[in-house]
């Protein structure tokens, strides 16, 4: 009996899982409030999955993915505003740029471990913010870029929110699919070895740095595509939004943690827990006492770090394994 689950069964399992996440869209398609939340949920699920590729599987805990997110957003918006290039094409240069600068930027800090690497990536985010404010011609400076409403498939601007929900769902599915392909390939296994013990990985003939670089390139490119979609959906992007640690930088990691770091489906679970909860809390409590809903979110983050270190997926996995062991 092969240890590796069969290809078809895996794909069906994940495809089934992802289709289930379409159910809420079908049910709530009338209520624009929930459709808007679903749009973010799918988008941030995809982004958390992309982050997980390097943060979870690669063991390189990055808090600087906001930089790739921002590059994708700015590149697509600038190409569309400047030269009327359809965002569908405009996404690609952003992704390629991040796939090259990502590894270049992260490469020198790879030998740093855990918290050192995280602090270095935080510094990248801050430098990115200052640069975004400073380079007016490219990023529109502090005013950022505004994209006028001109509906059209080519412009990737739609009046109907449900289309956006489907696009974001597609992005999430793309990220999950790429992760599945990755984790069923040599690079994926090498990643697990590198995270586990770099010295042992070296001995097993793995070029540790190259594995990390390719992994970062993939993760950065996907984060950039996420940024492009975000820019076209919101149609107004400015440095504080794109480089905000609480909303972007740390949130990717938080969603992956609460969902289950280092699992494929974990980040998706995490997104479906965090984003709706936060949006609903803000809607209900936001008006009342200022900041109360953020106290709750901060508390959730604290409790998750303390009691759910392997996240929801980890907890389910442990439960399932304990049940199967007691059953067998």
């Amino acid at each position, binding site marked *: 009996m092969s240890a590796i689950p069969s290809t078809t069964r895996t794909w069906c399992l994940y495809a089934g899982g992802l289709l289930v996440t379409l159910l809420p869209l079908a049910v709530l398609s009338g209520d624009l409030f929930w459709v808007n939340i679903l749009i973010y949920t799918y988008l941030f699920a995809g982004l958390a999955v992309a982050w997980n590729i390097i943060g979870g599987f690669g063991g390189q805990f990055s808090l600087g993915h906001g930089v790739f997110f921002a590059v994708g957003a700015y590149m697509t918006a600038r190409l569309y505003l400047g030269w009327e290039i359809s965002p569908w094409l405009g996404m690609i240069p952003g992704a390629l740029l991040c796939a090259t600068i990502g590894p270049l930027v992260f490469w020198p800090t790879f030998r740093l471990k855990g918290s050192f690497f995280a602090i270095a990536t935080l510094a990248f985010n801050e430098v990115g913010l200052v640069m975004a404010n400073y380079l007016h011609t490219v990023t529109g400076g502090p005013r950022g870029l505004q994209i006028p409403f001109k509906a059209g498939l080519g412009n990737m601007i739609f009046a109907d929110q449900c289309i956006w929900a489907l696009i974001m769902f597609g992005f999430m599915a793309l990220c999950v699919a790429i992760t599945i392909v990755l984790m069923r390939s040599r690079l994926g296994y090498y990643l697990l070895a590198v995270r586990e013990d770099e010295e042992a990985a070296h001995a097993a003939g793995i070029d540790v740095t190259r594995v990390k670089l390719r992994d970062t390139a993939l993760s950065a490119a996907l984060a950039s595509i996420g940024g492009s979609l975000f820019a076209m959906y919101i149609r107004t992007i400015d440095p504080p939004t794109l480089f905000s640690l609480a909303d972007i930088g740390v949130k990717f990691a938080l969603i992956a943690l609460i969902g289950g770091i280092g699992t494929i489906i974990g980040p998706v679970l995490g997104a479906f827990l965090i984003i709706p909860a936060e949006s609903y809390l803000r809607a209900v409590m936001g008006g*009342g006492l200022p900041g109360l809903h953020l106290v709750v979110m901060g508390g959730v983050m604290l409790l998750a770090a303390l009691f759910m270190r392997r996240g929801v997926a980890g907890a389910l996995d442990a439960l399932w394994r304990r049940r199967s062991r007691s059953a067998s």
Partner: protein
Amino acid sequence: MNIAGRLISAAILGGGLLAGTAIAQDSVRIGAVNPYSGPLALYGDELARGYQLAINERNAKGGVLGKRIEMIRGDAGNPQQGIAAVDQLVTRDKVEILIGTYISAVSNAASDAALRHQKVYWDTNALAAELTERKLPNFVRSGPHGANFAEMSVRATVEMIAPAIGKKPNEITVWLEHEDSIYGKTIADVQKVEFEKAGVKITGIGAHNFRAADLTDVVLRARRANPDVWVQTGYVPDGNLMLRTAREQGYKPKMILFVGTGDTFETLDALDTEYLEGLFVVSYPRPDVAEKFGPGAAAYLDSYRKAYNREPVAPQGMAAFTGMHMLLDAVAAAGTTEMTKVRAAAKQLSDRLWREVR
């Protein structure tokens, strides 16, 4: 308002919000989109208080369109939360009009979302010029925008400061300092154009981060350029730090002109009155302005003190108050809350007001 008092009032407000959604459709519901959490919560709250005062006054006189007016808050600190707030207010709280916005980026995204719902977006406080340049069919701005602040700072320099220091406009030199986010940058850009038009020599333009731990470099660079008038556009934290550092560095230019902040108790607490003497401020009309310049300001101040038994936190609240009144006038004139009619009524109202003023 001690802390315990504030907690109780907030709980009632919070509770009211929840209960609000259940009341039947016999009232005109207005959604107020502002940052009620995060660093700018103070200003979001102040605008909401301004709106509420105007609503209370209108409800006392029978509301609008024969119905009671009710305000529901939508918390938004960044553009994506702006969209979510508008969707929430329209679909769940059934608001018919949206008003708001202390942050320009939020107004941009929220007014866009409001257009999707075919609802009027009445902006009383956002300053970015682009908001009206976009020509959205549902967008109306009642408050001043960046260019007004810039033009006013130029007029203040040319018409008041120049004669005060005995110089002709083309002999005056200014240094334009601004904080580096959308607010400061927008105003500074227009100031640059307007000052050059007025023939005033700009000795330099500086930008800084309003969170900076030290602003001595900003002060020293201004002193090196030795302008007659030191113009600063920013928020309270950086404004206070700059004034303190300037006092410590013993730098007192002939005139200091603050745009947007500098006239609230927060600055008064930070600096002793001695250094603040002679500080010019171009800002929203203050509630305690003389009746000659701001008719109705005293009335606003009284009702504010009665309703919240404290001094107004920031002048932006009065701009929100007047903005809400103008909105309600437009709705009354239009006879409906429908987007295009309200906007048309607002246009007529605006033209009539300008004719009276000239």
